[in-house]
């Protein structure tokens, strides 16, 4: 049992970090914000904490907090103009943001060590810490989803006109979702950098953006469980099917297309909805 745990500890860490990133993507998608910015905020968090720890000699815990704060700050600054844009344009603007962060991390060699990335970051974040953080974030998001904020986000996603007619300020909730998303991504990046010894700019590019998006689409974007299930499946799948490594992207692309066409609510959310339906049916059947 212990051996099993140790041989899969790195996979578990990967799943947990991905779960955080997926939740950052889930928050915005739940509100109907087409943000692709998670990768950019994660890069900010990761680089901030890595630089503070290796160059400035800060204690890692403080560096991680500052990394998260920087992600939050960036998303707060972006949230104001972004909340005035419509769907696809939010996607393009955040895509541009990711590219800007990427080219800064690649080219500001004096600060970020360029394409080589930053090495020798002490590993202070273990599986336990990651697990604790994920549990806390899940609890936070689940609570947020249950109260009026969650309802408001759901209405905005399903139909903006209805939301406006109910007196819900769309830009306000979009800003809120976007800021939370930036904070979570910054946190995920900072934790990842203090967990994996080394970070490179390439990790936070288009590939991460696509991966994270795929997780949430696959799992479902109406409840926090969707993000968790998506992260679990897409992180574990390549490890389990090493034989098909060459066709990993074919499988992932095919999955994305199949799910968005035939199961638009995602695997987990469809399942949850079906269970709820059955329970309701049984209850009404009993009273009839």
């Amino acid at each position, binding site marked *: 049992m212990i051996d099993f745990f140790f041989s899969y500890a790195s996979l578990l860490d990967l799943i947990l970090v991905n779960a955080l990133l997926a939740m950052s993507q889930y928050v915005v*998608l739940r509100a109907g914000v*087409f943000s692709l910015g998670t990768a950019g905020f994660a890069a900010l968090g990761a680089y901030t904490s890595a630089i503070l720890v290796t160059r400035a000699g800060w204690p890692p815990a403080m560096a991680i907090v500052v990394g998260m704060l920087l992600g939050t700050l960036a998303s707060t600054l972006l949230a104001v*103009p972004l*909340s*005035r*844009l*419509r*769907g*696809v*344009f939010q*996607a*393009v*603007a955040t*895509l*541009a*943001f990711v*590219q*800007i962060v990427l*080219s*800064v991390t*690649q*080219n500001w060699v004096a600060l970020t060590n360029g394409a080589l990335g930053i090495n020798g970051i002490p590993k202070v974040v273990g599986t336990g810490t990651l697990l604790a953080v994920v549990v806390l974030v899940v609890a936070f998001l689940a609570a947020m989803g249950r109260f009026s904020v969650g309802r408001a986000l759901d209405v905005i996603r399903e139909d903006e006109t209805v939301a406006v007619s109910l007196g819900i300020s*769309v*830009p306000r909730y979009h800003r809120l979702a976007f800021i939370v998303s930036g904070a979570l991504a910054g946190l995920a990046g900072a934790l990842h950098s203090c967990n994996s010894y080394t970070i490179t700019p390439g990790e936070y590019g*288009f590939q991460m953006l*696509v991966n994270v*998006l*795929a997780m949430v*689409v696959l799992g479902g974007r109406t409840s926090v469980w969707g993000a968790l299930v998506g992260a679990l499946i897409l992180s574990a799948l390549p490890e389990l099917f090493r034989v098909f490594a*060459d*066709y*990993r*992207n*074919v499988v*992932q*692309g*095919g*999955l*994305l*297309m199949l799910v*968005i*066409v035939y199961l*638009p609510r995602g695997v987990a959310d469809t399942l949850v909805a079906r269970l709820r339906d059955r329970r309701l049916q049984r209850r009404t059947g009993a009273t009839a």
Partner: protein
Amino acid sequence: MLLQQILNGLVVGSVYGLFALGFTLLFGINHIMNMAHGSVFMWGAFAGLYAVVGFDAPIGVALVIGMIAGGLMSVLLDMVAFRPLRKRGAPEFSAIVSSIGADLILLALAQKLSNTAVMRFPFDAFPVVIYRVAGLRIQLLQLVITGLALLMVGGLVFYLYRTDFGRRIRAVAFSEQTARLLGINPGWVNMQVFFISGALAGMAGVLIGLVFNSVHFTMGEPLLLRAFVIVILGGLGSIPGALIAGLAIGLVQTLSVAYISAGVAEAIVFLALFVVILVKPTGLFGQAGATMRVRRA
């Protein structure tokens, strides 16, 4: 030296314009953000290259093959990735996701096919003719590319605004349901738009392959990212806007690569996109009606 760089920039920019033209057709007119457009471009380049290397096709024929391959791939993409979503009336977001999925598949297949290698056109694929005008080196290829780009833009504008087919396309773009009531078959019109868009991408692919003499499975991604910049900068759905913005981006990029550095060039291009989308999201040549689609009230 400066003039030479400007000339090179304009040539690269007109290929960018060609690529962005197909993208803006789908993005601006059909409201689809096709994330797989870069892969269509790359497959066009692959088809052209294999025609030259495998079948000794003359470059003109290879160009046409690249266009047809791009066009067919784009139509296929529509059938598999977009049509089921359109039928259901799915939100724009679904189309982005499903085209990202298609993009992953197309990329992986191309990587497998080319063994991740950088491929080149044979040296004499395009006759190397150089004219010297007032101290400038002008290659025949550069003239042909610029000419083709102008021809395509002119042709497209004529097709869209002066023919019956074009009127149908614009009717479907305005409202698919209204067009259906008027006896237009939207499926057929969409197929046309996708074919044209893919053919333009395929052509741009072969031309970029010739200009930089390298064909690689990742060649589409930087172009796709530039196309976003060009389409937004030029204005949503504006055809002349796409060409002008394409030229501008080509120019800015070539000059900043030559005089500053490649990394800074990248950052400048995306910073420009970012500023434009925040300050004037309808772009420089956007139509008046575009504001509604971009901004919230």
